[in-house]
């Protein structure tokens, strides 16, 4: 992958997030949800984003999709998609979206077809009939039972797994170059999860679509993503090839996270302190109040990304000192 | 409270209500001609607004401004009595109906539904006429038609709260249902009841004015606002001030209570500002 620093990408990235910051004004003060986030995603690449709840994963997705909440400010940074800055002018149709909760992402009072065709009507060429045919063929591709009649059913007539297949089909409907998925399988049971993941991976690979995948499940991550970015408190802590990061994390945070929860990125229970509120981010390295190897300088300056041998980037100057035992305080 | 004051529209409501309360409390001292509650001066009847009579005089030559000031006390007293009585009936019924799912709660809620289906004004009119018409009857009729709203509110709150963890915990340590309902559920339902009561004040003042207008509420020579509008009808369009100012008084006071209730609702339900 490339650098956190906004130097020109080595090759034409499909999606390039550069020094992105998103702040939201709240009653409790300014919430700095994202700060200085950078990464590139090449065409056809797959990147997983992991982190605890509240680390800014969803906001990152919303920034890319152009659906930031009202009142969100972008004090710095760019999101380039095929070279266009999509923060200022969101693109539709060329980025597919698979939402987290298939149960709540479809409007209960409209037929499935009416909802899924609306996006195509505006962003895909062809007539409504072409669109219907295309969706039905996609329904078959995602192995949705009774694909032919699915368009005329209401959301409550589908099971959770079926709805998620429906939404995957919808995400692919406009032939996007990038599919963004927000923990698309957490609402489903384990067997269904596995099928859906295999399907998603297969379909995007086959069509050479890039995939940006938010999850807190390391198992899912290793099954789907070539690269992974670990987010902590709105910053990228570590970014690198999935296998290497999972096997040998370098950033103290990633290390503790994996040591505590080898399966999922959930809260660091048993580690002193809590994730800082977005309105009260500590100065310097945002992890330093909880970090076992923190030094006085960590509270003063934001750590620069360090590139290590396999091309990974670690946002900790002392990562070499992060010996395995620190994870097991 | 501080949240309420930060909301300009709700503060306006609070200011109107406080102003009306002051006027009601000191009415006999504030009114320029306090004796005009009962005395008539036929020589100066139907005078247009002037420096002497800012809102003009009515068909018996009484100062309309004075009668509006004197009528404030009645309007607020009726509303307090009606809302109080409705709460006395409605709140216990809501607690009882919401606590358990059994035939008692079914019966109570069906009765409530039936009372809600009765056209309020017609019932109030019927009662007002069949008993001797007057302020007391009007108050009874209004109470009889307003309590279901409190039952509905408290019922919903009780049902929501009875599933809460702390209620289970209290039952676990052996608190009796009565104790739980009165000491724990009721205080939690209080904000919703308060909001309902504030809006009920406005609503009651309005309905009482309609009863007064239709001649089954306050009787002459009471300085009732609704009654005044009714009396003014025969003197239109010449004496426009006679009908206009008492009506404006109703509008202002009801508006005050409604704005205040609206603001209170925001404070009580911060999840969705100004939701329902």
């Amino acid at each position, binding site marked *: 992958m490339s650098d956190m620093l906004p130097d020109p990408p080595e090759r034409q990235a499909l999606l390039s997030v550069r020094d992105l910051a998103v702040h939201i004004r709240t009653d409790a003060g300014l919430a700095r949800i994202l700060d200085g986030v950078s990464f590139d995603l090449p065409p056809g690449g797959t990147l997983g984003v992991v982190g605890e709840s509240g680390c800014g994963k969803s906001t990152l997705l919303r920034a890319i999709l*152009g*659906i930031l909440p009202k009142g969100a400010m972008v004090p710095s940074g760019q999101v380039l998609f095929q070279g266009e800055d999509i923060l200022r002018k969101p693109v*539709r149709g060329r980025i597919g*979206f698979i*939402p987290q909760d298939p149960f*709540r*992402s*479809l*409007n*209960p*009072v409209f037929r499935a077809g009416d909802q899924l065709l*609306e*996006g195509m009507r*505006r962003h895909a060429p062809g007539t409504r009939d072409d669109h219907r045919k295309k969706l039905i063929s996609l329904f078959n591709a995602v192995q949705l039972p009774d694909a032919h009649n699915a368009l005329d059913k209401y959301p*409550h007539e589908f099971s959770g797994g079926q709805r998620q297949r429906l939404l995957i089909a*919808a995400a692919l409907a406009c032939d996007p170059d990038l599919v963004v998925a927000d923990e698309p399988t957490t609402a489903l049971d384990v067997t269904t999860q596995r099928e859906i993941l295999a399907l998603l991976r297969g379909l995007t690979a086959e069509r050479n679509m890039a995939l940006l995948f938010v999850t807190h499940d390391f198992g899912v991550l290793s099954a789907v993503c070539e690269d992974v970015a670990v987010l902590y408190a709105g910053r990228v802590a570590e970014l690198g090839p999935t296998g290497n990061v999972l096997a040998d994390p370098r950033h103290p945070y990633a290390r503790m996270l994996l040591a505590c929860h080898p399966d999922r990125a959930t809260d660091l229970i048993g580690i002193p302190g809590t994730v800082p509120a977005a309105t009260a981010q500590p100065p310097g390295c945002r992890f330093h109040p909880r970090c076992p190897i923190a030094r006085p300088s960590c509270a003063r300056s934001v750590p620069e990304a360090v590139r290590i041998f396999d091309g990974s980037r670690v946002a900790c100057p002392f990562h070499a000192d992060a010996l395995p035992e620190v994870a097991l305080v | 409270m501080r949240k309420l004051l930060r909301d*300009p*529209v709700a503060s306006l409501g609070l200011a109107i209500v406080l102003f009306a309360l002051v006027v009601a409390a000191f009415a006999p001292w504030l009114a320029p001609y306090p004796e005009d509650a009962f005395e008539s001066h036929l020589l100066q009847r139907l005078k247009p607004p002037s420096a002497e009579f800012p809102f003009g005089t009515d068909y018996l030559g009484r100062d309309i401004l004075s009668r509006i000031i004197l009528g404030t006390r009645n309007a607020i007293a009726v509303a307090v009595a009606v809302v109080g009585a409705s709460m006395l009936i409605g709140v216990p019924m809501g607690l009882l109906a919401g606590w358990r799912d059994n035939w008692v709660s079914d019966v109570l809620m*069906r*009765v409530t539904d*039936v009372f*809600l*289906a*009765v*056209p*309020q*004004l*017609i019932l109030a*009119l*019927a*009662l*007002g*006429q*069949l*008993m001797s018409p007057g302020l007391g009857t009007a108050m009874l009729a209004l109470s009889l038609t307003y309590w279901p709203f409190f039952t509905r509110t408290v019922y919903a709150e009780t049902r929501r709260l009875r599933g809460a963890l702390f209620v289970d915990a209290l039952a676990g340590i052996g608190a009796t249902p009565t104790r739980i309902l009165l000491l724990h559920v009721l205080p939690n339902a209080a904000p919703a009841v308060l909001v309902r009561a504030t809006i009920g004040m*406005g609503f009651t003042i*309005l309905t009482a*004015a*309609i009863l007064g*207008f239709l001649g089954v509420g306050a009787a002459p020579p009471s300085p009732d606002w*609704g009654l005044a*509008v009714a009396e*003014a*009808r025969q003197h*239109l*369009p010449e004496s426009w001030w006679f*009908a*206009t100012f*008492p*009506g404006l008084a*109703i*509008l202002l006071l*009801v*508006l005050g209570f409604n704005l205040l209730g*609206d603001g209170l609702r925001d404070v009580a339900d911060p999840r*969705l*500002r*100004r*939701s*329902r």
Partner: protein
Amino acid sequence: MARFILRRVLLALPALLGLVLLTFVLTRVIPADPAAMLAGDAATPAQVAEIRTRYGLDQPMWRQAVTHVRQVLTGDLGSSIFTGRPVAEEIGFRLPATLELTFVARFLSVVLGVPLGLVAALDHNGPVDQIVRLLSVGGLAIAGFWLAIMLQLLFCMEWELLPLRGRIDVALGVPPGFSGLYLLDSLLAGRLDLFVDALRHLVLPAVTLCLPGLASIARFTRSGVLETLQKDFVLYARAAGYSPFRLATIYVLRNAVTVTVTQVGLLFGALISGAVAVEAIFDWPGLGTYAVQAILAADYKALLAVTLVVGVVYAVVNVLVDVAQALVDPRVAEQMK
């Protein structure tokens, strides 16, 4: 859908029976003696007793109640004990007048209230929102009878633009037709002059009557839209590239109005109550004026019938509301199964 409707009708029946009994109790237990009022102040005790026997008022209360319910169930509303005319006939003449007025008023409150609520929600906490808020709270605070008089003062007396009272100019005649709804009948008969005249008579009462409903509907629509806007599916639809206009109008509004539709039904009772004062002021020959006359004359037969008819209208409207809801939201019909 037919089964759904049937079920809803059956569910409404116990409440109606309760209403029949309640109105009976309320009008008869109260200390007023219709026989004495009917006989007049100068009547002898014997005359009063005779009247009492004739109308069955000497029977035990429970038997009167049973008789009353049986008569109502067989469609016999009895004769007015005051005018002697069949109550059903009088109501048959007056019901269309009230229905026409209330439906037009309700129509106005919906077509004005829903867009107002929508624009308020889209400008959440902004200036438009605050203005709509003041308007809607004010709409609920204004006394209908006073507004009616003010409108008469301006439009009828001062500027002489609109007629002061009644449903139609009697010099023009009454529109021929079956429904008794003058707007409909005159259109069907092709009498445009009558239509315009009926409309001119209708404007002020309808505007007065629509205001409280308009205010409530604007508020409920606003909160419904705000609630819906927070749903995941709105976010999803935005990401999927819905046009903002379509999203706000069709996509969100359809969910939001389910609450509003319920309110339209629940507020219908208040609407009919409101009609009493407004009908009195505009001399509208509807149920409201009839009810006031019945009350003033202690005509309990007529009063019971009016309350019953109003209750039935209320029940029918609420069944219609449920059907409308089932049409808007497929899950409602599902739940009833």
